């Protein structure tokens, strides 16, 4: 990494070039996000046509669902299945633009409404897990940086857990340990903070493994670098050196993992919410897949794709704000 920085040509700083530096980036990013969302919508549209059999029946749960004639007629009308494919496609895109995601046949409610009701629970779970993972990872990194002997052992165990332990088995083991044997925490998600502890831990522990791996490396790098030496020479205490200089240095690579972490949290939420019987987007998605509720699955997939694009764009923005080199390079 140091090599690529040194290899960059010297840049002349311009005053008043802020808009000129930000505008192309903004246009490029917005265009990119719109393109991906369009492509995702297109893929899901044609995915419905891939379902074997009558598309109207497929939308209502496949041949086994024994949908009533009225329901079939309503699905044909709603999806315009008697019109030419191109008109159906344009109608689908048009409805998406107005936020109309169709109707969930299993819940007999608009998909947008179902998603609205379940989004909050999953967001809370994901954000708390992310925060817990960051705290664990930073703590381990701080321990390593102070030369703690056990730190690298604990970190490598967490790394392996993160790479190889499925969420459901971690959840079962935590339930066995904390609910069945110790009796400290409820085995299902009850309202209130106690019910959140085990779901959050299940999602946070593997994530902390990955985050910790990245952060430990960059913090150890930073602790050995000249700017830390300079800070020490100025007489800063160890705590100040770590938090003000080294930890900040480690934030960038960790932020780079955000898009990946978002995917891991959503996939994890599918498992964790169903094990702990916690209402949320993940559990709705699983139920929708099990019941082959195609409109609901596609609605949730689209919302997750939108969320993923938001997270990666914000990540990119954070990178540019935190690292002036990227801005000057005019990327």
């Amino acid at each position: 990494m140091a090599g690529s920085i040194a290899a960059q040509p010297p840049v002349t700083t311009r005053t008043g070039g802020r808009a000129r530096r930000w505008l192309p980036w903004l246009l490029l990013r917005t265009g990119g996000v719109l393109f991906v969302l369009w492509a995702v919508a297109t893929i899901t549209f044609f995915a419905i046509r891939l379902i074997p059999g009558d598309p109207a029946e497929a939308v209502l749960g496949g041949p086994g669902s024994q949908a009533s004639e009225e329901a079939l007629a309503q699905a044909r009308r709603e999806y315009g299945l008697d019109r030419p494919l191109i008109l159906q496609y344009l109608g689908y895109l048009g409805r998406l633009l107005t936020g109309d995601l169709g109707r969930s046949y299993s819940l007999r409610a608009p998909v947008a409404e179902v998603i609205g009701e379940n989004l909050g629970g999953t967001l809370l779970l994901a954000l708390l897990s992310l925060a817990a993972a960051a705290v664990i990872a930073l703590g381990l990194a701080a321990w390593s940086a102070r030369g703690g002997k056990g730190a690298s052992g604990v970190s490598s165990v967490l790394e392996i857990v993160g790479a190889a332990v499925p969420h459901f088995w971690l959840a079962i083991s935590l339930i066995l340990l904390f609910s069945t044997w110790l009796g400290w925490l409820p085995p299902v998600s009850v309202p209130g903070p106690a019910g959140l502890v085990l779901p959050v831990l299940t999602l946070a522990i593997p994530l902390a493994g990955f985050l910790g791996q990245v952060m430990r490396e960059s913090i150890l790098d930073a602790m050995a670098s000249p700017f830390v030496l300079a800070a020490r020479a100025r007489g800063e205490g160890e705590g100040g050196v770590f938090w003000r200089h080294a930890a900040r240095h480690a934030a960038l690579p960790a932020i780079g993992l955000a898009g990946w972490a978002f995917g891991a949290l959503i996939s994890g939420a599918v498992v964790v919410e169903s094990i702990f019987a916690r209402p949320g987007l993940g559990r709705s998605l699983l139920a929708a897949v099990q019941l082959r509720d195609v409109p609901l699955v596609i609605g949730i997939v689209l919302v997750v794709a939108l969320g993923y694009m938001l997270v990666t764009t914000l990540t990119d923005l954070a990178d540019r704000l935190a690292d002036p080199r990227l801005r000057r390079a005019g990327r």
Partner: protein
Amino acid sequence: MRRPRPLELIAAAVLLFLVLAALFPSLLAPGDPLAIHPAESFLAPSWAHPFGTDESGRGIYTRIVHGAGPSLVIGLSATAIGIGLALVLGLAAGLGPRWLDFGTTRFVEVLFAFPGLLLALLFIVIYGPGVVTSTIAVGLSTAPGYARIIRSQVLLVRRAPYLEAARVLGRGPAVRVFRTLLPNLAGSLFVLVTLGIGQSIVWASSLSYLGLGAVPPAAEWGAMLSAGRTYVASFWWMSFFPGLFIVLSAVSTTLIGRSLQNRVRSA
């Protein structure tokens, strides 16, 4: 050559056991994994049944040993599908003309917007649950990640002098790809496969656990866990041991994969 570390030896031993179990299950566990013995249901681990018995009196140990084959085959097939798709995408992007690289890279970016298991779930809702669809689904959702890695590997190798030499010698494009390029990628592909098997096993068993892959009473680890789900609080061994074997196989393939990675890098 570095001497293997004790952890790597343990991982290799675990893998050896799993491969033996997959190839000759009756050698390690003579019993019938599907035979029902109602009188022996829900027995705690003992000498006769090292991992206890399930609701129909079937030995968990016997079922785990007989489940090694299906579980490993699902993991391997999913990895093969993922790497195969990724190889097509990665080679097209890395070797093709600029517009093809641009198009393929954008396509992979779009696939990344279905993060984690989302692509798998979308595939399953289209083609219905089951062992075959869930295996393909897992392969499909791992493909974008592999494609990105393979593309960057191809771009690295493409400029290598031996490819230039092959071109100067008048070898055709197909010969160059299959006889020169792929053999040189084989090392890193092998590492990718080893690291990928663990993830595939974990994801495929997650889908079985959620009731979207293999279904009970099949002796597949994820399906066994799914069956034990109802009894977690009272009969922990029904869930604990199948899960332990999923974790053991994923951890040992990951450890071996990392050690291979280090060897390939330092070689």
